[in-house]
């Protein structure tokens, strides 16, 4: 997978999280996975289809998701209820929208699916024929991994 696909997601995740959480965000080392990998507990997924195809996953554990939802709503949210899910979905939405703007400027044309959210224990995600690049982002609320698996359409 070409690294130019992931940079826009990393930059916009960094910008959006810093803005909506009003905190310092640190970027961890990028790594590559070609087999299945565990999902931490709460994952928002956005699909891409067009010149490039694949998906982007925003993965975090449940306490992190609750802390992020609490910070974004300015109130304490203790269960993964509809509001918490809507909040994490909206976070994924804003990050993806900003990244896609950058990719469109680079000349890539594709559409996005609305974000969907998965919650549960012992989940894993597998990609056939696409490598996934993962960028961990450290926030005071916890770690969020941006997991991008995109390829050019054959």
């Amino acid at each position, binding site marked *: 997978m070409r690294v130019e696909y992931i940079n826009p997601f990393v930059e916009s995740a960094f910008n*959006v999280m810093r*803005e*909506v959480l009003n905190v310092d965000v640190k970027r961890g080392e990028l790594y590559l996975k070609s087999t299945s990998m565990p999902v931490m507990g709460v994952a928002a997924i956005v699909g891409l289809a067009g010149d490039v195809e694949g998906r982007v996953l925003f993965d975090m554990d449940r306490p992190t998701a609750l802390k992020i939802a609490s910070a*974004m*709503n*300015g109130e304490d949210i203790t269960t993964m209820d*509809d*509001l918490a899910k*809507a*909040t994490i*979905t*909206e976070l994924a*939405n*804003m990050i993806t*929208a*900003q990244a*896609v*703007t950058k990719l*469109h400027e680079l000349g890539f044309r594709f559409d996005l699916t*609305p974000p969907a959210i998965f919650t549960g224990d012992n989940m894993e995600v597998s990609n056939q024929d696409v490598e996934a690049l993962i960028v961990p982002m450290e926030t005071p609320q916890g770690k969020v991994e941006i997991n991008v698996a995109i390829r050019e359409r054959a």
Partner: protein
Amino acid sequence: MKTKEDFPSINERMPEGHRPDGTPFRILVVDDSMFVAKQITQILTSEGYDVVGQAADGLLGLERYKELYPNVDLVTMDITMPNMDGITALQKIIEFDKNARVIMISALGKQDLVKQALLTGAKNYIVKPLDRKKVLERISHVLSK
């Protein structure tokens, strides 16, 4: 003892959400995200606006506008929504009431759709993430015209 009357009232100001006669402006919020709808509602009510309705898609938004009319002053309208998108809902609201004041709420990267909305008759737009100051400025500007 000093009473309140002894102090000048320089710090008192009318909340932005009120008309000069003191009655609040009435807003309809159309958004499929519970989070965004709540965020907009909180920002508006904190400035004295009256959120008279919420709708979770364009079709419900259109129906709600017709029910509320003429007791609604402004609509905030998301663009990407199920059942009926925000641009179609905007178009239908304007067909129903050519003076409708609708502000689009958009994620970044929807410039073409925003342009289309403005050509269709939207009065302004706000790009997410929503910033309190930006939301209040755009809305009071549209209402002042």
